[in-house]
């Protein structure tokens, strides 16, 4: 299956990526080749029903998460934030500012 530039742009938008015109063309060609290769999966007979993954008991994934009791990570976390105000992350408003690009 081949992916054209429009399809690549649509998927990139879903993934919150904006590609340059050059990237769109290159990716369309490269991803088409990769998806063609992946399409060979249709030819393989898996032959068994999905069991839903590994045994949860064996893997320990069924265990409840128990809160470990408040490590003082908030300051470390906020130190990494590009912008913060008091104890909150600061981000642009959800809707574009009037007269803005969006």
């Amino acid at each position, binding site marked *: 299956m081949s992916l054209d530039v429009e399809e690549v742009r649509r998927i990139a938008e879903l993934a919150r990526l904006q590609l340059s015109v050059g990237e769109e063309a290159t990716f369309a060609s490269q991803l088409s*080749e990769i998806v063609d290769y992946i399409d060979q999966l249709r030819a393989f007979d898996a032959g068994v029903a999905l069991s839903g993954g590994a045994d949860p008991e064996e893997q320990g994934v069924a*265990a409840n998460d128990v809160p470990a009791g408040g490590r003082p990570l908030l300051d470390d976390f906020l130190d990494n934030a590009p912008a913060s105000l008091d104890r909150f992350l600061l981000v642009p408003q959800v809707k574009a500012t009037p007269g803005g690009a969006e």
Partner: protein
Amino acid sequence: MTVETLAAAVRSGERTAVETVAQAFARIEEVDASVGAFLELWRDEGIERASEIDRRRDAGETLGPLAGVPTALKDNLSVAGHELNCGSKILSGYRAPYTAGAVDRLLAADAVPVGRVNMDEFAMGSSCENSALAVTRNPWNLDMAPGGSSGGSAAAVAATEVPLALGSDTGGSIRQPAAFCGVVGVKPTYGRVSRYGLVAFASSLDQIGPLTRTVRDAALALGSIAGPDPRDSTCSDLPVENYLESIEDGIEGLKVGTIREVRTSALDEDAAEGYRRALRALEAAGTELVEVSVPLIEAAVATYYVLANSEASANLARFDGSRYGHRAAGARSLQRMYTDSRSEGFGSEVKRRIILGTFALSSGYYDAYYGRAAHIAEAMRHQFASAFEAVDLLVTPTCPSGAFARGERVDDPLSMYLSDVFTTPPSLVGIPGVSVPCGLDSRGLPLGLQILAPPFADAMALRAARAVELAIGFECSPEAIP
């Protein structure tokens, strides 16, 4: 010196941890401008930790199994207070607020982390060329790729900058660079080593493991980092074996499976000869070679690139400029900030894989791609389990060739992905894989043999790797970095 001899010498007082660590820094100073393995050195902290180890020994304390061993950490392993970039611009300036479980165990074993080493961005790559931060070269020939994504880890060990490095392996990222650089690399059983504090790429596949110059060192290191961790719910509670205890027991009488679908005609001539040499070594060590069939192994690369990238597209959604790392300047809305930060921060390969994963999970394609791949991975697990009813171990070449040239495959992602043809199947089914050097190709570059064992039979894989190492007598002495 090996990890084992260095740690023994530090424990006995024959040498100090400080001189051991100082020598590692001097060696890094001497050669790393050529190799390019390290992104950052932790000199003061390393010497300070070594001094503390020496002080404890002088006070009569018994030191850990990795006492004073200079260790390099892949740039996706968190160490509290240290910068962590995953080879990416998008994590520029990020400092880890906590330390990874595997690194905690290294520290408890008295190893001394000396710095972080280069990798393909977010561990996506097979040559280390997708790093946004540095160029790493293969110590055997500086024009060649060191492999990836743990290319910095493998190159640092091969160039004797450090005797031990930790890497992470999602579809071959420890084993392939280990093979390219002539060192030993272990991807443990999924769940054997805690992934707490490892930046996630594909959570159902990622495992941390050691790269060393000898199999004994790999066994010692794995025994030190393996074990339960309540902070990683996928980490197994099974007790950790002493991997060194049985490592010299040999493999006489074991049945070793070769896989019918691994055709030597698909290898380059040198890799085929290296593989035959390794099989002869296994026979000489007293094993019986048995051909088995794992038909779905031929679907592994396609399956892997659907599953791994689907998981990656979800895992990497968190990098959007709001909480850490790069934030695009001037965005006037939240949505714009997300898109601009991600578009500026991620490199081409990461974008390509996020798009591929988003495609495989998107409405209308999910069943045909993600669903189908998950189904095949499950069936492959059954096929491997059946194979292990007939044999004790399986072997394949680690890669279809020795190291390729830097720049040779960067514009052809599919050809880069195909170098993972033998390393992706064990990842998909969660079994342990050890890459052990099995000689040089006609260009003088190393080749690796991959040894696979059933889940949690890591000790048996290491024992077989040790037997191959002894039989082949490979010496890791890269000419370009004497």
